[in-house]
Structures are given as C-alpha cells and as structure tokens.
C-alpha cells in the first residue's frame, strides 16, 4: 500500500506544486523518488512530529495541500493535540499518513503498532478517516483525498487484500464497497484485513453460509445507509478490524446501526480486546494469536449461527437469533 500511495502521490504532485510531502524521518528508500523529482515539495522534518504537524497546518493555511508521513502512532498519537487544534479546528488541508496500520510491523513491538488510531482520529471534528483494504483502494483513496479540501487520516497497511475491484467500478469516499453480495451474514472489514474477511467468506461458503462482504475503507464519515441495509437484509453483522475493539470500526458500526434503528440479528466484532500485543510475530502470525485470521473468523461466525437454518426466510429467523 505504501508504494502504491507514494507512486500515486508522486505522479500527481509533479503536476501540482501546491502539494508538499513532509516526513518524520521515515520512509528510507520509499520517498527518494518523490524527493529527487520535486525537492521543493519535500521536507524531512526530522524526528519531530509535533513540529511536523503544526508546520503542516501553517503551510496548509497558506494554500498548500500537505501530507505528513510517518509510521504507526507517530504521526497521530504523538502529536494528537496539534492534529486537533492546529489542523482540525482550522480545517487545514492536511492529510496525515501512517504506514504500519494495525500490527503491520508485528515483530517490532507494541510501540510501532497502530491499534487505537481509528477510534481516536474519528472522534476529531472535521476529520476524514480512511483505511484502504487493497491496492486499488489505496490509489483511489489517495486521489480522492486530494480532492477533499480538509483534514484527513490515511491509514496504510503492510498487508492488502487480493485485488477486489470490478471492471468499471468507481471509488467514493464515505461509500462502502460491496466486494461480494450474500444473503446470510454481512462481513464488514476495514484495512488490509479485508483479505481475511474475503477468505473467511470463502470458508463460510463451504459451509453453505452466504456472506455479503463490504469494504468499509472510510471509517468516517461512515456509510450508514449501506450498513443499515446490510443489517436489515442479512441475519447478522460482523465487523473485522486490526484495531482495538473500543471505538474502532465495530464501535462506529454499532453506533450507526442503533441510530438507524437497524438492529442486526446478531453482532460480532473482531478486533483487539483491551490489550497490547507483546508477542513477537509477523502480522499474519499475530492475527492468528488474536483470532483475527480467516479461520478464526469463520469458526466464530459458524458457532454464532449455531443450528439455525439459514435457508429459512430471514424475516422469521432474524428476530430469534
């Protein structure tokens, strides 16, 4: 995702001198091409995220479109007050980009995991929160955010789902994408873990469970309409995120469904339950440890479905689930 993002940004920024890319001294080798081709539009701010973020606001208030780039929680939590006061309050046109969403940098340790960012960033007024699921979404989201004049957070993942795009499909910020239609259960995923959701959908299909799979690439603003429809049309809603359960995608979906009066037959959340990951392991290994992998998802969904016959009319089944 990182490479797709920077390739997309570089291609556009070479034509648009108002775009400036700031890095908190991360992106070795990754940002080189951008810096070499358009050096005036690139600044390595040093390991100083507070200054980078306030500086970005100052540049944006002068008419620039500014991207801040760093890893894990460095460009978000370290400088959260600058994001809130300097960027969001001033509606400054700054896009905050993190690489290493979730446990992308699994073995590096909890300091480098971004596992509360969605919850924290989505609580900020004026902030758009985007977490692409595959490479196409990453490229499209990058372009869409350039068209959105205001603060945004782009969470990039080391993992990415296999290509999900259909011919002629268009991308819209704030609009969940139907990856696969289905009638029994809805799987909602945000970020690279979309790949696990798709795989879990395959496993569930083998058990005769028809899954609707939606990529919720924009966590804020949330596509309440599509989510409510899914809650009404399928027996249960399942949220999948590489993120703390508190306040993340699952929390956001629960809020939206309750507010819409669209009560799902059952509601399952996959995420990190109040913990720091202190186990050493790759992103894929840690997903297994925390039961966020496709097998774990399929297993828990099947268990939740229990002995209910999914071939029955949903209208009669759903209320009893």
């Amino acid at each position: 995702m990182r490479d797709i993002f920077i390739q997309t940004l570089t291609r556009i920024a070479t034509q648009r001198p108002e775009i400036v890319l700031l890095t908190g001294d991360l992106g070795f080798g990754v940002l080189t091409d951008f810096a070499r081709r358009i050096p005036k539009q690139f600044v390595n701010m040093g390991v100083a995220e507070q200054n980078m973020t306030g500086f970005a606001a100052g540049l944006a208030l002068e008419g620039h479109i500014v991207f801040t780039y760093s890893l894990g929680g460095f460009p978000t939590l370290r400088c959260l007050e600058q994001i809130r006061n300097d960027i969001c309050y001033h509606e400054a046109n700054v896009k905050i980009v993190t690489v290493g969403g979730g446990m992308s940098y699994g073995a590096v340790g909890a300091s480098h995991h971004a596992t509360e960012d969605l919850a924290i960033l989505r609580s900020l007024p004026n902030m758009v929160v985007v977490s692409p699921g595959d490479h196409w979404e990453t490229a499209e989201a990058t372009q869409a955010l350039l068209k959105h004049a205001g603060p945004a957070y782009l969470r990039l993942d080391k993992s990415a789902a296999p290509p999900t795009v259909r011919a002629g499909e268009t991308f819209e910020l704030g609009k969940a994408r139907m990856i696969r239609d289905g009638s029994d259960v809805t799987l909602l995923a945000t970020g690279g873990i979309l790949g696990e959701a798709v795989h879990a959908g395959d496993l569930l299909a083998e058990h005769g469970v028809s899954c609707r799979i939606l990529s919720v690439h924009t966590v804020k603003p949330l596509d309440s309409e599509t989510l409510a429809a899914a809650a009404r049309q399928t027996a249960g809603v399942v949220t999948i995120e590489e993120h703390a359960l508190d306040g993340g995608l699952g929390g956001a979906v629960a809020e939206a469904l309750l507010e819409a009066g669209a009560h799902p037959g059952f509601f399952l959340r996959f995420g990190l339950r109040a913990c720091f990951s202190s186990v050493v392991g790759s992103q894929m290994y840690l997903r297994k440890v925390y039961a966020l992998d496709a097998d774990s998802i399929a297993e828990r969904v099947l268990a939740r479905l229990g002995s209910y016959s999914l071939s029955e009319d949903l209208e009669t089944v759903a209320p009893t689930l």
Partner: protein
Amino acid sequence: MHENEIRELARRIRIHALRMTSLGGSSHIGAVLSCADILAVLYGCILHLEPENPKAPNRDRFVLSKGHACAGVYAALAERGFFSIEKLDTHYKDGSDLCGHISHKVPGVEVSTGALGHGLPIACGMAYAAKLAGATHRVFALLSDGECDEGSVWEAALFAGHHGLDNLTVVVDYNRIQGIAAVGDVLELAPFADKWASFRWSVRETDGHNHAKLMAGLSTVPFTPGRPSCLLAHTTKGKGVSFMENTVLWHYRIPQGAEFKAALRALENHI
C-alpha cells in the same frame, strides 16, 4: 505611528484588556499587561496589515502563541479598525467569538492557540510557505517564557534555525513568571539567549516596555540574513499596576471591585 502614538496605543490596549477581563470575568490580565508594549509596537508600526482586507496575501502574519494574552490582541485589532471597540465588551460572554484564548474566528487573527507550544511550529509553516512562494511578507510569533517548557517550541526552533527562516521573528515575553510559580523555580531557562543562539537563531535582548527600543529591534529584522530572529523582551508581569506587578497571583485573578478601580486609575495614568 510615532513613538508617542505607540505609547497611547499601549495605554489603550492595557485599559481595554483590564475592562475586558473585569467585565467578562476572565483570567490572564498579568500576562496581557506584560506584553502590551510589544503588541502596541507590533500593531502600531511593525506589522503590515490591511484592516479592511484581513486576508490580504502580502500582509505580515502574526501568531500569538501565548494565546491566553488574547485580550491584548483583540484590543489592538479593534484599535486598528478590524472591528469595533464596542465588540470588546463581549469578551468572554455568552455567544461572543472573543473567547479566552485567541480565536481565528476573529477578523485579523491568523490562528487559534491556547494550548502552549503550538504557535511556533505553525509560524514556521507560514514562513516556509512564504519562502516557497518567493513572497516578501514576514511572520512574527509572540511566545511566553513559560511556554518554552514545551518541547514543541524547541522542535520548531531547531527546524527554523536549520532552514535559515530569516523571514521569521520570535518575540519572547520574558517576564519570568509562569502559570503558578516563578520560571526560575520551575524550570530555569537561563542562559535563555544562548539557548536560542545555539539553535542557530540571531538573538537580541531588549527592554520589553521601552517602545523606542522595541521599535529599533523589530524594525531591523532579520538581525542576521539567513537566520531566524529572536528578540528576548525583558518584561514585568502585570506591568503598569503596582499591585499586579511581578506576582503569580495575577496570572489567574480577575480584576473586580476596588481592585479593578485601582488598576484602572493606575493604567489611565500609566505613561
């Protein structure tokens, strides 16, 4: 503006601020009185501003990083005609936009601050943008001394020094009293000038209540081409009201009743 007009502007800023904090019931009069002379010089004869066009592209940018001294800036803006003097009476009152820490919703105000250590990074961004654009306007930021406890100030100072942002000037209101104690008892900043100089800034020190000296300092920026400028303005917190001077108490205390009247008398007679 001539020096005598600056003196009168400073007097009026102090009186407005005293009235505003008293009427509205807000804190920080000591911090406003401390920097009133700096504000009078900046708004009186240093900053290029167009009150009828607050967003004029070639205006100088002023960032009040010590956002709690907003009453002084609101007063200066009203005196310069950005909005009516009468509006000042709404400060801190229900429905007003003149809140207790400076707000960018107010005409003439560039950015909202209040949480300390935010102004200098933003000012660096503005100065860098001017450099990128080849523009000749300047950026000024007024910081408090206590604010320099914040690491973000030094992140920005390091950046500005490295990049030689000579269109950026910091004025530090060096009154040696912070929120609830004396600077020297909390975190000593001395040698303060050396700190800035070691971050590759060109530093001067001056009497922050002497208009002629402030004018002389601020009209010669950049002090050194290729370097950001730092003017350490030695000030007295609560300047102009004897019982407010050099006291921690008047960082937060609201001037009311007999204290308000005594302070008003003192400021009306303040030269």
